[in-house]
């Protein structure tokens, strides 16, 4: 078996064959004697395939879909070149590309930490207020005054709640 395998770095015949489990995946690498030495592979105590593979983490597959972020215009090629995203919306735009990258990079792919509760609730109530104000304008334009009065009351309640929250925090 070993005669057929070539070193994954320099194409010389591979004599060192490594198997490691990284993030629950079995990873195999074949190396020639000199590459194995150079990479420190022969020291079985501390060697990690994860290090060897880390450089290829961001290299994405050929023929993948060309995506551009609608918010900032970042393309797949930009992301591949820099390894960085352009804006918050990129995380939605490139989610399928990111998933495998994140799996290799982190302990998990779901956030388990702190949540900015105040900022989020402010963002939600701002969005709600916005919707209500739009509805109010529409109701007035359509001369649906009963609806308009209802929306006006809701807007006032919403603003009061926001003020109360601001005082609490």
């Amino acid at each position, binding site marked *: 078996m070993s005669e057929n395998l070539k070193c994954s770095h320099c194409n010389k015949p591979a004599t060192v064959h490594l198997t490691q489990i990284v993030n629950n995946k079995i990873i195999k690498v074949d190396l020639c004697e000199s590459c194995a030495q150079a990479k*420190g592979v022969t*020291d079985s*105590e*501390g*060697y*990690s395939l*994860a*290090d060897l593979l880390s450089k290829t983490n961001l290299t994405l597959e050929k023929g993948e879909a060309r995506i551009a972020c609608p*918010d*900032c215009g*970042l393309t797949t090629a930009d992301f591949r070149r*820099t*390894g*960085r*995203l*352009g*804006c*918050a919306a990129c*995380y939605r735009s490139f989610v399928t590309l*990111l998933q495998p*990258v*994140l799996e290799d*990079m*982190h*302990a*998990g*792919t*779901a*956030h*388990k*930490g*702190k*949540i*900015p509760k*105040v*900022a*989020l609730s*402010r*963002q939600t109530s701002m969005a709600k207020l916005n919707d209500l104000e739009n509805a109010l304008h529409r109701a007035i334009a359509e001369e649906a005054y009963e609806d308009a009065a209802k929306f006006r009351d809701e807007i006032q309640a919403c603003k009061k709640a926001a003020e109360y929250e601001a005082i609490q*925090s």
Partner: protein
Amino acid sequence: MIESIINSDKAELTQNTKKGAPVVLSTRVRLARNLVDAPFPERANMAQRSDLMARCANQIADLSQMKNGAFFDVAELSDLERQVLLERHLISRELCDSQSGSGVFINKDQTCSVMINEEDHLRIQFLKTGFSLRSVWKQIDRFDSSLENELDLAFSSEFGYLTACPTNLGTGLRASVMLHLPGLVISNNMDKVIRAVNQLGITVRGLFGEGSDATGHVFQISNQQTLGESEEEILSRLASVFKTIIDHEINARFKYLEENCACLLDQIGRAFGVLKNAYVLNSNEAMNLLSLMRLAVDLEMLPEVNRSDIDRLFIECQPGHIQYVAGEGIEADARDLCRAKTLREEFVQLPALDFDKVNKLG
């Protein structure tokens, strides 16, 4: 512009006299945060960068933690001033090299700095001398929460805090300690330690982060992963790794002392002599000599009160600091004379080394 930073008599890393400890120089925690409605700094145009900096600067200036703090527009700082802030670990190399529209807030005792338009919109950092992951985390968590009251941060329930680079995604948290590890280096065990902790998703770097070498036997050790674990989990995993490394360092020192006591004491004695008498000292040599002096304090050959002097000199002997204090733009050769002079003046004030205590130990 930065006189107040250099001349401060309250700066945590250079003036704190109380909390020095063997092995651990300092603890730092940083959080990466972005605003929801602007492209990340690298992708933003000049107008967007300036607008974001103005918005954030207003909010940060109002925070109680920044009372009597200072704001610096990076574009207005000279190269030398940037280097001094870098050497004090108050800004990053990336911010030093950044285009205009970047800035940094530094609080009064230099325990907190907030970089604006670095890789992310905001990079918040808290640091303290000694080993105090928990208390530094508590401080930065509180600061982050008060910022969140004023600014809409980019956050998704799935991925957490959204960052320019996916390596910081989730918690955006990077916690590090600066460890002084002469025992592990001298006994040739450092490579083994580095490989072992790498397996655990923990990174080891030199004194000034990525790509810097470990002069003075000082290493910066931090978590690599930020997503999939809570802040608590990251910190407690790190804390246990740090404690293990510290134990290994202490063991390595005892073992070395047992086997090579005379050799080590001779090295320390000679280093003390050189620091007191040298006329030319480059930065590398100075760091390595100071490393031996810190070890001398750990071994009780020098009084504990002098630990903070040595820690301060680790920073004040960096090239930028020497040049800044000398005033004019001086060449590297002249810097080495200034550095040696500074060190002579400091070390002549120290008491003689006490070899007896160590001999009793051995």
